[in-house]
């Protein structure tokens, strides 16, 4: 009787996502693009000699008709369906066809490559649906007579280097990933969450199940912990009873989280529906929201892109905004492919200042992925998907789409030993 919970080392790597001392002085987003271009171009320049050793590298301004060369720059995707604020003010009715409900793509979309010197329209062997605004790539081709740049080949940065995967210890240690609890929403079933709590803390099940549960070393809640009724958040002054209604989900969440925190370490990340800042990187929810659970040393409130190491296995995850936004402006066969692309582009949220809210950093681009994670997860997706991708330098990355718990009742368990993962489902068959 009595099982001691397995432990593991935790290192938080969230500093890059903290706004910290950055101040907003009315600066625009050009700094972040500049920082990105500068960083990525250095990287790409170092890769080009291996990729196309025989071609010169030049800037957009130096292009000459018929001369094959490599240019590096930031992509801009021109999309006729992309909603623009100005459209709302134009008096004339738009001739643009109606937008599909959740995607702004159109067959007429085209890409533009730009650097400090100028911009050029891309055509040829580059497929617009795969790309979005904000990526830095190197392209090989030549200027055509029409002023377009005829692309022959494209190079993206590729998977970043990865720290060595720790030697297999032979001991199973599990990490549970949950997202989209939506406490307080009509779709969420509190009983399922209660079961989750009881399972991972080891109340539920027989000895075998409890032994299994004792190997869970960490729980990560990837965004959308609560759902506050939209009706209340209309910018009007609130009646006193509405205050209660607004805080009720958070209070309930605190009670539930404190039950977990009493048993094992947990990280919470803010998501789009949480009472955090809207723009990425979302800063950690203040502990005063969770008076009960924050009194435990196991409770950690983290930023939204969240990076940490458990026993030297590196995790990187978001609450889903980056992939959801890619889904609006580009096309892929599944969400995992979007995730894979962001890794290959070495950028967590390429659409960030453009269509995704983002803090206007001046010195750096926090979403640049310097080091390849072993586990890359994205929260608040429709269903559980997972895959392992391999990089050219032997990197192995486990990609995980964490489904919305409130809708599916599914959490994800990942074994740190071999980064295998499986679904942890909670079914009510009453």
């Amino acid at each position: 009787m009595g099982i001691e919970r397995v432990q593991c080392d935790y290192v938080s790597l969230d500093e890059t996502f903290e706004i910290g001392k950055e101040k907003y002085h009315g600066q625009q987003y050009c700094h972040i693009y500049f920082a990105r271009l500068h960083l990525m171009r250095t990287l790409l320049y170092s890769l080009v000699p291996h990729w196309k050793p025989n071609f010169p590298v030049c800037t957009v301004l130096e292009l000459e008709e018929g001369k094959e060369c490599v240019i590096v720059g930031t992509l801009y995707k021109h999309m006729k369906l992309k909603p623009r604020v100005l459209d709302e003010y134009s008096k004339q009715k738009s001739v643009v066809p109606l937008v599909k409900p959740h995607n702004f793509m159109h067959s007429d979309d085209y890409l533009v490559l730009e650097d400090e010197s100028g911009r050029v329209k891309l055509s040829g062997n580059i497929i617009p649906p795969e790309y979005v605004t904000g990526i830095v790539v190197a392209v090989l081709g030549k200027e055509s007579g029409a002023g377009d740049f005829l692309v022959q080949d494209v190079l993206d940065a590729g998977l970043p280097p990865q720290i060595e995967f720790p030697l297999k210890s032979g001991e199973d240690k599990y990490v549970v990933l949950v997202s989209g609890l939506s406490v307080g929403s009509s779709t969420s079933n509190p009983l399922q969450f209660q079961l989750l709590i009881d399972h991972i803390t080891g109340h539920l099940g027989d000895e075998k199940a409890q032994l299994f549960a004792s190997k869970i070393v960490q729980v990560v809640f990837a965004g959308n912990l609560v759902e506050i009724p939209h009706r209340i958040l209309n910018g009007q002054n609130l009646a006193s009873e509405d205050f209660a209604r607004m805080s009720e989900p958070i209070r309930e969440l605190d009670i539930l989280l404190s039950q977990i925190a009493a048993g094992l370490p947990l990280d919470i990340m803010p998501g789009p529906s949480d009472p955090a800042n809207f723009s990425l990187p979302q800063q950690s929810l203040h502990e005063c929201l969770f008076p009960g659970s924050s009194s435990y040393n196991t409770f950690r409130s983290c930023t939204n892109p969240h990076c940490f190491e458990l026993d030297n296995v590196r995790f990187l995850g978001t609450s889903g905004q980056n992939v959801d936004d890619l889904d609006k402006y580009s096309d892929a066969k599944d969400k995992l492919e979007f995730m894979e692309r962001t890794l290959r582009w070495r950028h967590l949220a390429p659409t960030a200042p453009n269509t995704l809210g983002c803090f206007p950093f001046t010195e750096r681009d926090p979403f640049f992925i310097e080091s390849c994670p072993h586990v890359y997860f994205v929260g608040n997706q429709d269903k559980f998907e997972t895959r392992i991708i391999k990089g050219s330098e032997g990197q192995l990355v486990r990609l995980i789409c964490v489904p919305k718990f409130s809708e599916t009742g599914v959490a994800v368990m990942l074994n740190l030993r071999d980064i295998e993962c499986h679904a942890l489902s909670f079914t009510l068959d009453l």
Partner: protein
Amino acid sequence: MAQTKTPTFIHEIESLVSDKLQVVSYQWLSRNYMVSANEAKRVLQEFVQKHDGGLEVVYALSGWLKSKDPNYDIRLVTGPKLAEAQQEFDGDCSVQVYSVQASIPKDPAMLRNAEFVQAEELFKQPSSVDNCLRDYRFCEISNSFVTRKVDGSTVVSAAPQSKSAVGEGPTKSNTVQKSPKSIAHDSIDKVDAKPQNVIKEAKSESNGVGNTVALDNINKSIAEKEKALPLPTGKKKVPADKSVSVARGSLASFWGGASAKPKHCTPSVEYNNTVSNPAVSTENVQTACEEECDSGIDDNQIVSVRRSSNRKRRVVFDFSDEDEDDVVNLASPDFPNKQSSQDSRQDDKNTSEKTTLNFDSQEENKSRVKEERETDQKAHLPLGDNVSAISKCTNTGKSSSEKLQSCAPEARVNKDSVNNAAPCSPKRRKVMKTRIDERGREVVEVVWEGEETEVKKPDKVTTKNTDSKTNAANSAPVTKKPPANSHANNGKGGNKKGGNKDPKQGNLLSFFKKV
């Protein structure tokens, strides 16, 4: 020690499940009785084995599913689906009792309500208290690395407790802490229990007064009246109780309800009168009589009676001179009422599929009360006409649909009247204090009688409730009034209603008549 405890547990579980209709989950059990989660599950298992039938059991299965992608599933299933669900699991899955309850709630989330309320309760305790929610001492898995900050600055390591859960040492510490907690839990239970009863009573009464349609309204009105009563968890239980209370509505519950509730309800009305009485001696008698009538009737219908009593009182005060006449006139119907009620009762039995226990019991009460009055008043009152009239109305009233219709509006009216009653009564009191003293001066005394009444309440209430019947018997004129009203009703609007309801409307009508 756990072993020895088990039997008492089982006993209590049964009462919780079948009487209080509570969902007893292992988690709740564990926290409530301070045993480990595994022990609680074992107890529930034992309980289920001993008890076959009348219970719904929810099992928790956990194990790997037979799907091509590995999927560890935790599943709640009801007893009948258990075998089928087990098929879906790969190899052996763990099967344990999750909860035991009288019926499966429509919304599965209800299963955890009791548990969550309990967790909330524990959560609200001051942060310096280490309770079972905060340190997980009942969990099999311990984590000695968890620490908890208390009051911001000091850091108390929760490690000992969590460790303690492992060995024998812990049990001691647990037991020490347990006693206060269990008490707290008990008190909580009681609180939980009370509202249930109250509501049941309310319902049984309401059943008596009106039929099902009127239930809601009446409940509401009663709830409003009885804000004084704590109704913490009442809301949740209402749905469950409804069916049961309706079904049960036994004599016992009815009487119980009458005794308990009326005390709370009636005092406010009665006290006003009593206080005011000293000032106006002549009216005293009448008001008292009325009150007694009320109290007598209260057993049957709190709502309607109160309302009617208020109205009457007003009338009495305004036209104190005429009162006696009225009383005489009105009084006559009283008899018929009783008889009619008896009649109706018989009728009900004969005719009806409708007659429920409630109805009978109610009428029994009534008839008893009225018989008492009857005996006293027989000398005074002529019976004949009234009887016929009332019997008429009762007969007509029987068609259930009509009853329903008539009930609903009444209930609403009652509500209003109740609300009105409170503000009105103080005014009346002040007016009463205006009088001519020995020197021939008009003296207007403005006294805060509300406070007095509150002070006086306890005494008077008790006396009144106990004595009310005897009083009612003694004071002839008073008892007569309500019947008079009913009589009036019978003549005019009698067709619509059953015997019970007539008095209220009668009051209204009679009041306007007089004016």
